[in-house]
């Protein structure tokens, strides 16, 4: 009857008989009558595959997106995705497995994690990585807890130029642990040592830098900020867009203690916000403070190399309320996608993706400044995302672009009224000259 339920009424009879019961109902005898649902669930009856395909096509057709040219960023980018990724994650031995609790039959998953950890540490320049976290925002929160745990202080300092959703998530996480969030105002969009100096103190547990920051600007006082943070015995947490690390200095280069970020850019699709994954890497001395799974290398009975989940005494299933985090299920398959992406691109490829994104963004930026009445929100070095503004409300600008099949960007008014008409535009390596020229043309046409 139901393709996903194997046993038939005849099987049911045989099984009940074998164990001496008369009906399935008997197994539910212990549920008090008053608690029994004495009606059918108010859901539709079972649908067949064909009916589902029709329904889902109808729902999907109520979206727009798949044929639009995407200039929206904000931490989630429309990039070229190698076809091998889907072929790898479609191997059912990967995607239908549970967390690798039985290492002898899970060497695939475990080696993938071990390789992922290596790729992330190489990318970020850090010593150790975990197996993934939920997303970039919660990774920042987990890093904040690590800083608190390590320093025994209760205050986390962040600049106001981080992703507004990261800020929201951090606020929620900190609030319930009675920790303090101190927000530092930035100057012309970037985080300065001077501004930090005003807030940092011996109570500070950690300082967060996001690079490039939410406005797409490349932070230019990171070294000084790291130094100041360390002088105050706090940890420096750096949140990064992993692709930019193809050419930008890594958290490791800057001496950060913890590197975090959202891995969507690494070969994960847009997917309306998820699943993506958060990554976290840190210095060696923080390894036992890390949340999440970690795979380690070992040997089997015969001395052969193999991999296991390790350092599990940090984790909830052993340490319960004293664990470094509650995380259990993480985002393994997305981390695998990222691994395949990094391997497919390789050392040169990732530099190329980063470089082209930056070059194309600057092409568009320069064209806009040259040919239209739009002005930059900040006239500062940026990587591949930038704010522009004009007399015209951003919503109107987006509308005009959409008419030409273009998703124009993010309205910066979500960052506050200062940014009234601001539009945050992201350019990846996937955008073409033709698409950008059309973008400019629409802006030119706006009066």
């Amino acid at each position, binding site marked *: 009857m139901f393709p996903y339920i194997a046993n038939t009424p005849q099987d049911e009879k045989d099984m009940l008989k074998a164990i001496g019961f008369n009906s399935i109902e008997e197994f539910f005898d212990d549920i008090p009558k008053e608690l029994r649902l004495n009606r*059918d669930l108010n859901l539709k009856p079972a649908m067949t595959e064909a009916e589902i395909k029709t329904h889902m096509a109808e729902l999907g057709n109520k979206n727009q997106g798949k044929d639009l040219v995407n200039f929206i960023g904000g931490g989630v980018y429309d990039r070229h995705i190698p076809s091998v990724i889907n072929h790898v994650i479609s191997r059912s031995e990967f995607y239908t497995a549970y967390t690798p609790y039985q290492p002898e039959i899970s060497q695939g998953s475990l080696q993938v994690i071990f390789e992922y950890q290596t790729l992330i540490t190489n990318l970020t320049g850090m010593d150790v990585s975990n197996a993934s976290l939920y997303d970039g925002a919660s990774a920042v929160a987990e890093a904040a807890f690590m800083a608190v745990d390590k320093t025994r202080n209760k205050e986390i300092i962040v600049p106001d130029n981080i992703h507004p959703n990261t800020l929201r998530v951090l606020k929620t996480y900190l609030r319930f642990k009675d920790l303090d969030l101190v927000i530092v105002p930035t100057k012309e969009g970037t985080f300065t040592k001077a501004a930090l100096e005003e807030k940092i103190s011996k109570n500070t547990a950690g300082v967060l830098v996001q690079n490039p920051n939410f406005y797409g600007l490349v932070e230019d006082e990171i070294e000084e900020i790291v130094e100041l943070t360390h002088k105050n015995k706090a940890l420096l947490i750096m949140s990064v867009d992993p692709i930019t690390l193809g050419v930008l200095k890594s958290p490791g280069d800057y001496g950060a203690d913890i590197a975090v970020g959202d891995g969507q850019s690494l070969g994960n699709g847009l997917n309306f916000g998820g699943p993506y994954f958060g990554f976290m890497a840190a210095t060696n001395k923080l390894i036992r403070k890390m949340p999440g799974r970690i795979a380690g290398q070992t040997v089997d009975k015969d001395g052969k190399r193999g991999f296991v989940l390790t350092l599990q005494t940090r984790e909830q299933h052993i340490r319960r309320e004293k664990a470094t985090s509650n995380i259990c299920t993480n985002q393994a398959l997305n981390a695998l996608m990222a691994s395949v992406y990094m391997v497919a691109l390789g050392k040169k490829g990732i530099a190329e993706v980063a470089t082209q994104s930056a070059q194309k963004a600057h092409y568009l930026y320069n064209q806009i400044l040259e040919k239209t009445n739009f002005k930059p929100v900040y006239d500062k070095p940026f990587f591949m995302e930038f704010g522009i503004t004009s007399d015209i409300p951003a919503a109107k600008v987006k509308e005009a672009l959409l008419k030409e099949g273009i998703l124009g960007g993010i309205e910066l008014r979500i960052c506050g009224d200062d940014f009234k008409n601001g539009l945050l535009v992201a350019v990846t390596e996937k955008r073409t000259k033709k698409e950008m020229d059309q973008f400019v043309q629409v802006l030119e046409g706006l009066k």
Partner: protein
Amino acid sequence: MKKYDSLIFELSNPDRRAFEIPKNDVEEVSLESFLPKESLRKEAPELPQVSQVDLMRHYTNLSNKNYGLDTGFYPLGSCTMKYNPKINEDMARLPSFTETHPMQDDALVQGNLELMDNLDQMLCEITGMDKMTLQPIAGSHGEMLGLMLMKAYHQDKGDTKRTKIIVPDSSHGTNPASAAMAGLDVVTIESKENGEIDLGELKDALGDDVAGLMLTNPNTLGLFEKQIQDIAKAVHEAGGLLYYDGANTNAIMGITRPGDMGFDIVHLNLHKTFTTPHGGGGPGSGPVGVKERLVPYLPVPFVEKKEAGYKLSYDSPKSVGKISNYYGNFGIYLRAYVYILSMGYNGLKRASEVAVLNANYLMYSLKDHYKLAVDRPCKHEFVLAGINTDIAEMPTVNIAKRLLDYGHHPPTVYFPLIVNEALMVEPTETESKEMLDDFIQAMKDIVEESKNDPELVKTAPHTTPVRKLDEVGAARNPIVRWKPEE
């Protein structure tokens, strides 16, 4: 079939490429021309360089060292490893969904929002709750959020001294850990031998400093808390709230509902009950449902249905805020949505019934060879307290390893903590009688082997890609990344 032991880094060779992006079609200006030199790294990060065939073979061969649900039986208790329908995968890959950006205007993602709204209602109906949020990315994430909601509720009522949460000692490790994440103090109470709450103990623990009780029902031993109404009454009378860990929902769909039992907050693991694949450790999805009085605290944004269409609303002054970047794992709960449609009200109920039938069939078929934690009909899973020591002696870990040689994934071992030598078995409804019989036979054979040839069992596994691994050594001297040999 093929032995394969390389790490991807060991295959790397400069100039190889598995993938290329198109040439830049705009002017190639140097990065230094627009970025400060100090912001640039000296050398690109060391990512391996391999050809495409080497990439595919690497991951194909690694996959062949993995055991998935599509490989065989996976009776991992508490994890509900049921079949992951293929139509779910196909639907989740439709470009009309995958190619939408989370920051697109609501008007451009009406299909996504409608799906979220529909799913919210379906999950409410299944659990008996009033409103759901789909934002949590996994079960534990849902737990944390649920406890934050609980705390926010009390705080909003001015009841700020309620900082304790009662958690039975039989609970999953994420329960107390999530409580800690939400800034609650854990009060552990001992369960009775059958995993049920000791009402006396509970009542002693209750007080005006208690925010609530965290529970799953059926409990971790797979038994229904018969006193759930009394428990709920006690907690509510003491001013606390009841939290439901939904990991065991597969036992009760269409049969009874946490909302009707008195629970105020529920999280579901869509990657368990609702067939979204586990991915070797995620992504999952852990929606949280609440009763009316807790709705104001739910995270933002939530979907509203207006005259003009669906809308993501942030207008909720008492909301706890956000716990993840966007709207949760959309691509995952989309699969759960497809599953619920595929089963319908009739299929979901039948799924729970057969899950329970399968579990009882296994339990009663094994009861002479293994010790039952509790000898009473179970729900969708049950716990064995190790081998029947009247017949032979053998630690649970070895039984599990020996099962690998029989081609089955072992049950969950040494959980719940309240049962010695625990083997927690959850067959799910997607398994056939034939498969269950095969497993029963293997379990019985292992008992025989333990009696007649204990060495064979103790040195298992014998047929896996690697033999038993040194986990102690791994933790003592952690090697957590590959490094080139000097």
